[in-house]
């Protein structure tokens, strides 16, 4: 029983930690692009990587202040969004999807390549750039704090606090935008671009704005991740993370302000709970060692998440927050 409580606590910490914030910010960005504007960005992780490396390179290599690095990361994400959007947004939706997925993989390979080593340190990546940020914490960051049966370092707590502040501000921004006429145009573009064009709206500009805004959220997520881990390694930014963010968004409910946030928390909770729980069952001998060894757990938990998502899509296709009537309209 105590073990179970412990597993729950560990999973709870995971659902509140910087990884959950990372996925929440990525998913908020995807929500703006995919949920509201209908843009298929399959390379959200590229924006996150530019955010993370924006800080890392600025501080470690160029020696400029942390906050200037944040601006560099955001600017890089905006530029990437513009570069991706300029040629593809006039075309059908699939072209953006192809361009983004290729860019995400290409940028990662570029950042880990030997020729990029002078800037990105290649596969080893950069570290030691978050000192300025951690030093701002109002509490002692070298000490460990115990919260609800879990142990947090002061630094972790500080990153999580600022990260959730970002998530809250981001959600507020999305909320304000989506109840405005601007959000109405975006949702209309998702439904039918030509109808929106025939009513005098410049669809291209709105799509570009959505792509840039979503990319900026992605960059913020990448920054939280880089600062949380204290390092920026290209292979941390595998494009699988984009699809986990999509999973979080669909879990929570697309085109809902809180959908991506709650979805990311639940996703991380399930992943961590499955992990700890399965290891517990194996070590207790409830699951025989020759059926499932503790080394398999890391893979099995994703299978469990996959099964969970399938069940969700069958029985609650709108996600946790979605409106079932709205989702069912697609079937017509």
């Amino acid at each position, binding site marked *: 029983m105590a073990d179970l409580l412990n597993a729950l606590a560990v999973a709870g910490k995971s659902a509140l930690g910087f990884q959950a914030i990372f996925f929440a910010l990525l998913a908020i960005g995807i929500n703006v692009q995919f949920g509201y504007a209908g843009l298929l960005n399959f390379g959200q992780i590229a924006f996150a990587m530019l955010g993370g490396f924006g800080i890392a390179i600025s501080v470690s290599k160029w020696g400029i202040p942390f906050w200037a690095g944040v601006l560099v990361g955001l600017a890089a994400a905006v530029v990437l969004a513009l570069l991706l959007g300029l040629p593809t947004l006039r075309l059908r939706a699939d072209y953006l999807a192809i361009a983004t997925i290729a860019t995400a993989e290409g940028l990662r390979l570029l950042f880990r390549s030997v020729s990029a080593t002078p800037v990105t340190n290649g596969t080893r990546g950069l570290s030691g750039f978050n000192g300025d940020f951690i030093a701002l914490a109002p509490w002692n960051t070298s000490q460990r704090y115990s919260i609800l049966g879990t142990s947090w370092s002061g630094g972790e707590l500080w990153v999580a606090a600022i990260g959730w502040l970002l998530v809250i501000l981001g959600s507020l921004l999305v909320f304000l935008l989506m109840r405005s*006429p*601007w959000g*109405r*145009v975006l949702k209309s573009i998702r439904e*039918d671009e030509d*109808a929106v*064009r025939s*009513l005098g709206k410049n669809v291209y500009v709105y799509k570009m704005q959505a792509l840039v805004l979503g990319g900026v959220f992605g960059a913020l997520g990448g920054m939280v991740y880089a600062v949380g881990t204290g390092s920026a390694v290209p292979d941390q930014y595998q494009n699988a993370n984009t699809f986990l963010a999509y999973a979080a968004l669909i879990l929570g409910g697309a085109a809902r302000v809180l959908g991506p946030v709650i979805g990311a928390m639940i996703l991380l909770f399930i992943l961590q709970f499955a992990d700890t729980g399965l290891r517990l069952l194996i070590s207790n001998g409830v699951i025989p060692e020759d059926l499932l060894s503790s080394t398999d757990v890391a893979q099995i938990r994703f299978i469990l998440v996959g099964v969970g998502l399938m069940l969700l899509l069958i029985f609650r296709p709108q996600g946790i927050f979605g409106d079932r009537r709205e989702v069912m309209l697609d079937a017509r």
Partner: protein
Amino acid sequence: MPADPTPHGATASGAGTSGESGYHPERAGGWTSGDAPQRLAQVALRDLPWEVGVAKPDPAVVVDGVTRTFGGLTAVSVDHLEVQRGGITGLIGPNGAGKTTLFNLLTGFDQPDTGTWSFNGQSLGKMSPHQVARLGVVRTFQLTKALSRLTVLQNMLLGAQDQRGESFFRALVPGTWCAQEKANTEKAMDLLRRFKLDAKKDDFAGTLSGGQRKLLEMARALMSDPQVVMLDEPMAGVNPALTQSLLGHVKDLREQGMTVIFVEHDMDVVRDISDWVVVMAAGRIIAEGPPESISQNQAVVDAYLGAHHDAPLTVEEEDQVLAEAERTIAREQGSDGDVLGSERGPERTDR
């Protein structure tokens, strides 16, 4: 361009307006205040000759030499067309005649290979669809484009022009757009009441029936206060009762001084509401004239039914055909053939 110097001819000769006496369309709704604007367009067009490319007294839209080809197929090839301001112009033609392509070209949804066209003297060439719409030329689509997962009211509000809250940064400050939004909502509700959709304002547009979507699309287009409304098959797939209501709405647009261009296949509808009818076939305009002139036009009949149709023949025509057939056979066989047996063959090929 030889413009007719007597646009509002009080001394109408009446030539070619044989159907004039019966031309008082019943009002479908109770909101028509007077029929002066409609009369103006109709009177202005009364004296025009029924010929392709004829100059109108007060054209809102002028098309010159527009062609559009898809590969080897010439979808549209219009030499000259003028559309009278404040009138209802029907655009008819068999399937594949290029009506919708012409619509797409006029509204910027497609770019032509050659040609110019203008609205109120302003050239619309190279303009994108939203720029055309902002000038006041708004269209609907053959396949209705209701925004399914938006409510009916949101659909309507999207149609309003110059919304301050549609800019990214002002959207974040509700104070800048709240008043305008409220005014737009009132206007939208007025229109919805007129189109009898007000009870559905909070339903998703995707739950409406096909006819209601047509109504919604037309109402949404009106939210932008257009000067020219282009309706692509507004009555297609709509039940007869709703057709009457839609007809009333279209006539009402004319009462409000808008120029209406519409594509339609139902000839009764075209006869009922158009002031002027333009007939297209195989990308070209083959006839123009008041509605009553169209059904008598041989080119139109040929285009619709094919040049080889079996129309009932008069006695003289039958004799002619027979004589011709006999001549043909005589020529081909060099002898008096069996006239009776080949009577219908030549009739098909010669007409």
